[in-house]
């Protein structure tokens, strides 16, 4: 018998419902417009993917527990209780077909933040034992091994050696009192190792002190994706402890959307206090350096390129102009896709959806949105700033046989850095 029970889930649903959620549910008029903002509905045409419907179990708990009429209905047995079977059915809706991209939250005419509610609903899904196995695995590895992809510090050390050899630059580790502490995502470590080298080059040019933390190199937060605040907290605390122990002024979120969201916005709420350091997205930092004239390039990308705004970065953290300024510095022909910036369409793999292999077909179908966006501008190069988006889009482009290479913005800048600039 599992210790995760429906009862625990319902308690978490109840605990999750706050004034905004009560207001959101009270306001919903069933207009269905959120569906038109959701890439899963728009591409499949299946009404079950309507965003607000994904919250039906949470809504019923709200109605039965927190409304006057609902309490009466529950008391006289007129309301349908939430069951295990129902939650099992909703697993697909709350995880595989929702990336918490927040586009519905932006469209809802009454202003309901549906993504906010999905995040809260996942809490009860986890504690009632209805979280998807793929995310359970990732969370387990993250907690037990230190990284959802099973990357351990020695693997990073190995990367460091390669980067130091390639660039001739020293990668600082566990340096007390360094100004900046960048985090890495597992994907960057495994799939896009260029990122670390790019950081080293940029920081050298900008002349800032930085350090990796051997006990907190991993930025990804499987707890955030699965929706368990306990696990998310445990993973955040690792970073916070090390950053505060090393006394850094800034922790730098990597090119990884949910990781930045977890450390930037969720973390202080989870530990119940402000950090003793600030959190910046790497793109925010680069833009600061560019604006201060500490980031210079001596060549430019000449391909026609476009930028995919990761949801966690643009729509959810307001980082929109930063990447455009950087792109205009480093590229000659930057074009925006339709619906860009905070209105961008999700890659289809965020919020943990990407790790659920059994739903690859759905993800690829939903990628139709991105395909349409890309076909509208016909880029020769697609740039983004999120390793997870990048991976999802690579799969999508391959599936649709679209030969558009994808680059990370930080690496692209690093490649074109003015070489002879000496440290300040």
């Amino acid at each position: 018998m599992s210790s995760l029970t429906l009862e625990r889930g319902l308690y978490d649903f109840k605990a999750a419902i706050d004034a905004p959620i009560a207001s959101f549910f009270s306001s919903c008029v069933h207009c269905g417009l959120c569906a038109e903002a959701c890439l899963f509905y728009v591409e499949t045409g299946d009404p079950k993917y309507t965003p607000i419907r994904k919250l039906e179990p949470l809504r019923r708990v709200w109605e039965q527990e927190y409304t006057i009429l609902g309490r009466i209905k529950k008391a006289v047995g007129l309301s349908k209780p939430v069951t295990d079977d129902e939650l099992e059915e909703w697993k697909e809706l709350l995880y595989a077909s929702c990336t918490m991209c927040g586009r519905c939250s932006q469209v809802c005419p009454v202003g309901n933040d549906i993504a906010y509610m999905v995040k809260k609903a996942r809490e009860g899904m986890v504690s009632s034992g209805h979280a998807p196995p793929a995310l359970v695995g990732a969370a387990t590895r993250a907690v037990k091994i230190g990284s959802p992809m099973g990357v351990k510090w020695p693997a990073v050390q190995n990367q460091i050696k390669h980067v130091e050899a390639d660039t001739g630059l020293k990668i600082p580790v566990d340096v007390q009192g360094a100004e900046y502490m960048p985090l890495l995502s597992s994907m960057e470590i495994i799939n896009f190792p260029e990122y670390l080298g790019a950081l080293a080059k940029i920081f050298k040019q900008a002349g800032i002190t930085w350090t990796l933390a051997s006990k907190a190199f991993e930025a990804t937060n499987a707890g955030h994706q699965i929706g368990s605040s306990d696990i998310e907290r445990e993973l955040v605390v690792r970073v916070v402890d090390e950053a505060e122990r090393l006394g850094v002024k800034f922790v730098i979120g990597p090119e990884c959307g949910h990781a930045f969201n977890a450390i930037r916005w969720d973390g202080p709420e989870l530990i119940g206090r402000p950090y003793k350091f600030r959190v910046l997205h790497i793109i925010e930092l680069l833009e600061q350096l560019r604006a201060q004239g500490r980031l210079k390039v001596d060549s430019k990308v000449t391909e026609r390129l476009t930028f995919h705004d990761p949801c966690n970065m643009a729509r959810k953290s307001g980082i929109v102009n930063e990447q455009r300024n950087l792109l205009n510095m480093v590229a000659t022909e930057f074009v925006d896709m339709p619906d860009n910036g905070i209105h961008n369409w999700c890659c289809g793999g965020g919020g943990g959806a990407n790790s659920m292999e059994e739903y690859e077909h759905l993800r690829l179908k939903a990628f139709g949105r991105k395909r349409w966006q890309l076909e509208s501008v016909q880029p020769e190069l697609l740039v983004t700033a999120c390793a997870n988006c990048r991976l999802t889009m690579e799969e999508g482009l391959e599936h649709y046989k679209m030969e558009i290479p994808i680059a990370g913005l930080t690496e692209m800048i690093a490649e074109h850095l003015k070489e002879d600039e000496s440290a300040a």
Partner: protein
Amino acid sequence: MDFLLWVRGPAFNIAVAIFVIGVLARLFEILVLGRKSLYSEPKGAQMGPGVAEIFKRSVPLPDIVKRGAVTLVGGYIFHIGLFITIFLFVPHIEFIHSVFGVRWPGLPNPVVDAVTVITMVALIVLLVHRIRQPVKRMLSTSEDYLTWLVTFLPILTGWLAYHRIVNPYPLVLGLHILSVEVLMVVLPFTKLMHTFTVFISRWYNGAIYGRRGVQS
């Protein structure tokens, strides 16, 4: 006439009482739930963007205008229509003046009449759309049809009363007032509550994203 006196007198009092108690109770029941304290370093303010969102949210995204045209256009028409018929029809202004002591100029009756017809057409189109469009059909519960009806009936009976199509007039006027009373009684306990909570929801939405520095 007895019926008209009843709906204008005791029934109206009952409806007002249920409406006011219901709305306030619902608002408190929502707001008292509160929100967790926020410790993350804010990137923007909450209050300003929250208030701004209350207005900004009325402007839909261009791609939604295309995809949700019926819902949006129909919704706009009937909401504006409701506003005009409720607040710019002289007899209604007299009522508001008697209760709240404020008054403003009304529109000529033929204009209100035309708006009423347009509003009813929009509501009927939206009902058909609700029945036929897969997403709305799936989302719809009996409550959605009930609220449609209690919204539609005051407009219909008001229009019939204005045109004096049903005789005798006190009956149709009484039915009009009664239908409004039904609407007032139903409003706090159904999705019609969005009349009030829409401001709270939009504010929260604007505040949540405003705090994160998202320029919407």
